[in-house]
């Protein structure tokens, strides 16, 4: 397939693309948040009088005024703003609405709030302790999903368990047991467009929302539950989105802004977070600590794996409980391990809360599993690449949840061989003190973490001139799926891509439905749905044409923008058929064509009490390798080269797939080496800004980022394709860690691997390297 130009290109390169951040409406009010100054405390009093007296201010709404409404995707543990007590420093307790932003922000500083401070728990290990302060006293009373099981009178939001075989006893009988502990910092998605929402109620009681969100239908669904308002009374608009990376999945500020608008008679209200507020009020990625243990045979077979994950959700569970669960059920990831034992405990702490992040727990698990197995293979003296080849999943084997791998799942071994070869695995390294070169590999495996029933619709309708309009539910967040959708449709009809228009901006009352734009599922689900809609349209076209030509439907072909009889010379332009064919006497054969399609994977299951079942609609395998250079005297790590090899089944648009691969690589390198939200003991963020929260800059990475795509088609994928969006990151942090070990024999366990941290590890593990 040849790539087509991105369908959002012109809007974006002219600067004309509009984001919620850019929108305003007549009479619109601006909201500013009053944020808690303590990490944990009872709200004694909120005094808005000074703020209300300020020029330009129209209303001050407090958390307790909205406390009748509850939200939370898995556990309804939060109100739109803190009502009785605050659970993290920075939590909104009130909102000021004013005619301009400046008035709103200034007035917000004038709202006086008194707290009765409670002792706070910031460290997740402390949160587990008997007698630790409780973040949620009434945890057991919250509505929740069946599968999520908070422990009453504790800070435990959920414990996920996976048991396959009998890891505990096999570990005792293994020839070699390796154990280690790992940590991963909370990090910020740092999408460039801060969260931004506008809400406006129509006179008929319909809520209209404009939001910078990944999943308009999830916003609608969760709002409908929270507001007890039918889905048809909620219209969610999503224009262009300035990046999401998981941080804009689910429901976030939309509920609050909807209620603020309602409180002022339905006037349009806009809330855009400043970058600082985005660090506090918008959710981040979970923090993780993990204890891993692996048992091996002398020959290097992995016999058993145990991992105990502790996942820091912050003050509210949001997606974190499911991230924790997914971290658990990926288990041994791409390895064929007969005995797997995983506990993944998600806890509440008095910190800003966490949500989904590109990789959704599976990213986090790769750091643990790939580092632990690397250490094990080194201890055994088995070449890490051979070790991985020996233990990998292959057709016929099952994942840790017992899901069967088939020939259609792609060629993991080939991925690894290519990744190892291209990074120069086994070839000479030119190290000279104090600069050491090392290479590392990691496997990567992920499928969308989705509920079994998740689905997608698509439809397409023709216009009089033979062009067509397509609708899918997925949003354009930069990933380019809309372009692939257009490409698929254009190719199916053999027409120019500019004859296919897709709904780049979403309106839930008009656009086709899709569950969410998450989990690297969009091309798979929406692509399949759109191909089904194409088939539906084609059969309508065939029916019409067969009557026009007086032949059987099977004899009709569609291509090159034409409808023709196979093997014959009779042909019609699409445009003469798609609105119904008008005969010479004015009769019409057929009627306007509307294609409809949808997609679901029928045989997925929930996981049982042992964490067993078929969760993944599709799995993408890959292998990632890096060469690094470590300056031992400063602890600085440079990634000289990166190779990512993925079996994408079928590459629809090579350029776009490569964009995901390269962009994902830089994000992963950035978070592996630099990124962490730093907290003080009182739960305040020390770096709530892009000055001291550093994301990769243009000079920080080089061009040596190489992607290779294998194409062993997936029988269920659209034209055989699989997803790549999140996969691009998975193994990179571990590959870097493994390469550091390869370079200097120092084992890193904690992310990010900042220069100071690595320097300390070198000093502890290989002090001789620092002798000058």
């Amino acid at each position, binding site marked *: 397939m040849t790539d087509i130009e991105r369908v959002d290109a012109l809007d974006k390169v002219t600067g004309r693309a509009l984001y919620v951040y850019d929108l305003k409406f007549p009479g619109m009010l601006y909201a500013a948040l009053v944020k808690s100054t303590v990490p944990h405390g009872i709200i004694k009093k909120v005094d808005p009088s000074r703020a209300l007296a300020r020029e330009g201010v129209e209303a001050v709404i407090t958390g307790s005024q909205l406390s009748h409404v509850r939200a939370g995707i898995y556990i309804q543990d939060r109100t739109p703003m803190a009502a009785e007590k605050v659970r993290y420093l920075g939590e909104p307790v009130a909102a000021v609405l004013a005619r301009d932003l400046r008035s709103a922000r200034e007035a917000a500083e004038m709202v006086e709030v008194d707290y009765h401070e409670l002792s706070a728990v910031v460290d997740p290990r402390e949160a587990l302790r008997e007698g630790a302060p409780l973040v949620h006293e009434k945890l057991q009373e919250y509505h929740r999903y069946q599968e999520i099981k908070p422990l009453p009178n504790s800070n435990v939001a959920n414990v996920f368990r996976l048991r396959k075989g009998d890891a505990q006893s096999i570990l005792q009988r293994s020839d070699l047991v390796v154990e280690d502990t790992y940590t991963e910092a909370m990090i910020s998605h740092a999408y460039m467009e801060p969260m931004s929402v506008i809400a406006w109620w129509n006179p008929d009681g319909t809520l209209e929302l404009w939001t910078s969100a990944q999943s308009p239908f999830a916003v609608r669904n969760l709002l409908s539950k929270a507001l007890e308002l039918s889905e048809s009374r909620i219209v969610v608009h999503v224009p262009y989105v300035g990046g999401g990376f998981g941080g804009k999945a689910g429901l976030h500020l939309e509920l609050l802004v909807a209620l603020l608008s309602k409180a002022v008679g339905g006037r349009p209200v806009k809330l855009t977070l400043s*970058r600082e507020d985005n660090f506090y009020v918008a959710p981040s990625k979970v923090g993780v600590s993990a204890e891993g243990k692996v048992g091996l045979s002398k020959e290097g077979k992995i016999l058993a794996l145990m991992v105990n994950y502790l996942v820091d959700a912050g003050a509210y569970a949001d997606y974190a409980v499911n991230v924790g669960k997914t971290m658990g059920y990926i288990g041994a990831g791409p390895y064929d391990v007969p005995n797997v034992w995983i506990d993944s405990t998600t806890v509440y702490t008095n910190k800003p809360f966490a949500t989904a992040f590109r990789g959704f727990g599976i990213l986090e698990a790769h750091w643990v599993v790939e580092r632990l197995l690397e250490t094990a293979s080194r201890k055994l003296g088995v070449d890490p690449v051979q070790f991985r080849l020996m233990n990998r999943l292959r057709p016929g084997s099952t994942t840790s949840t017992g899901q069967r791998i088939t020939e259609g799942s792609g060629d993991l071994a080939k991925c690894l061989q290519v990744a190892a070869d291209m990074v120069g695995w086994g070839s000479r390294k030119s190290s000279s003190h104090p600069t050491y070169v090392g290479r590392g590999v990691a496997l990567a495996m992920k499928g969308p973490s989705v509920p079994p029933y998740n689905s997608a619709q698509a439809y397409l309708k023709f216009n009089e001139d033979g062009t067509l309009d397509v609708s899918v539910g997925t949003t354009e967040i930069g990933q380019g799926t809309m372009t692939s959708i257009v490409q698929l449709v254009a190719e199916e009809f053999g027409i120019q891509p500019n004859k296919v228009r897709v709904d780049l901006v979403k309106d839930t009352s008009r656009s086709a439905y899709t569950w969410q734009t998450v989990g690297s599922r969009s091309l798979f689900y929406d692509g399949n749905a759109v191909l089904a809609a194409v088939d539906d349209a084609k059969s309508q076209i065939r029916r019409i044409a067969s009557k026009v030509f007086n032949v059987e439907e099977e004899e009709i072909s569609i291509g090159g923008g034409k409808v023709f009889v196979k093997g014959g010379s009779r042909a019609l332009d699409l445009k003469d058929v798609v609105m119904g064919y008008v005969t010479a006497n004015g009769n019409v054969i057929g009627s306007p064509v509307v294609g409809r399609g949808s997609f679901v994977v029928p045989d997925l299951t929930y996981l049982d009490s042992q964490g067993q079942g078929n969760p993944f609609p599709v799995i993408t395998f890959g292998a990632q390798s890096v060469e690094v250079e470590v300056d031992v005297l400063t602890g600085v790590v440079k990634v000289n080269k990166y190779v990512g090899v993925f079996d994408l089944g079928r590459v629809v648009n090579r350029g776009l797939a490569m964009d995901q691969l390269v962009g994902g690589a830089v994000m992963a390198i950035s978070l592996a080496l630099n990124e962490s939200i730093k907290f003080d003991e009182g739960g305040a963020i020390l770096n709530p*800004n892009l*000055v001291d929260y550093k994301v990769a800059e243009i000079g920080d990475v080089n061009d040596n980022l190489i992607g290779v795509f294998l194409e062993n088609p997936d029988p269920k994928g659209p034209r055989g394709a699989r997803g790549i969006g999140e996969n691009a990151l998975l193994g990179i942090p571990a590959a870097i860690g493994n390469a550091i070990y390869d370079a200097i024999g120092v084992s890193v366990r904690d992310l990010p691997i900042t220069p100071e941290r690595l320097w300390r590890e070198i000093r502890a593990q290989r002090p001789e390297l620092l002798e000058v």
Partner: protein
Amino acid sequence: MSLLPNFKLELPTDLKEAISELAGGNVVIAAGATRVLLMSYMHILRPEVVVSIRRIGLREIKVSDELEVEANVTLSAVARNERVRKEFPLVAASASHVADPLVRNKATVVGNVVNAVPYSSMVPAFLLMDGKAKVVGPSGPREISAKDFFVGPLETAQRPDELVTSLTFRRVEGEWGFTEFRTDSQLPIINVGVLRNKKGKVRVAYTGLTAMPNLLDLGTMPSDFRGGYREVRNILQDLSTQVLDDLRSSAEYRLHLASVLTARLLEGMGR
């Protein structure tokens, strides 16, 4: 979008007017204003009155025996200036390390040095090149030498009612080096400048090591890394109790870095 806190803004059009604006109250001078605004956004500074000196002229770079950089000269202007690059390469190099081209297009050299923060990139050059600050206040002009200029953390010797009109850098013969170190922050955690004169005597200057800038005479130094590292490490040991310990780096690491970076500069110059 973050908004700046409210303040009054004065934009005098000549030096005299500017000086009269400085009298009284919580007045903050702004030249390029980049640091004033950055610190305001980060809630470190909350000025009542900002006096912007952008319209008072003072835009010249004067090259003679010394280099004189007036108050409104940007870092870009200095970094791009051919004569500065050739004749005062340490100044040009230091300037081109600050932030990024967009910030440098507005930020000034003087603003970088005055009220020096621990990440100030230009201060090592100013100290090493026996700089002088020319200041003007209600009681007329005076000069302050670099040695006497840094009087406390974030504090330099001009009085609140005085304006720095220019900085001068003395021409020095010999070899020079400059480097900085950044980790997970946009701001450097340490800046190091070194000079070795014709006689082989070495001077080194730091910002980011302690709360105030440091200028040290090292005498003759070995030019191999090992020797350099050991000597510098020994000399810096005296400062060890004052080394900064903050979000961006621990004291221990800073001290180690200072020795490594200095020794590397010395080694590089030797080649």
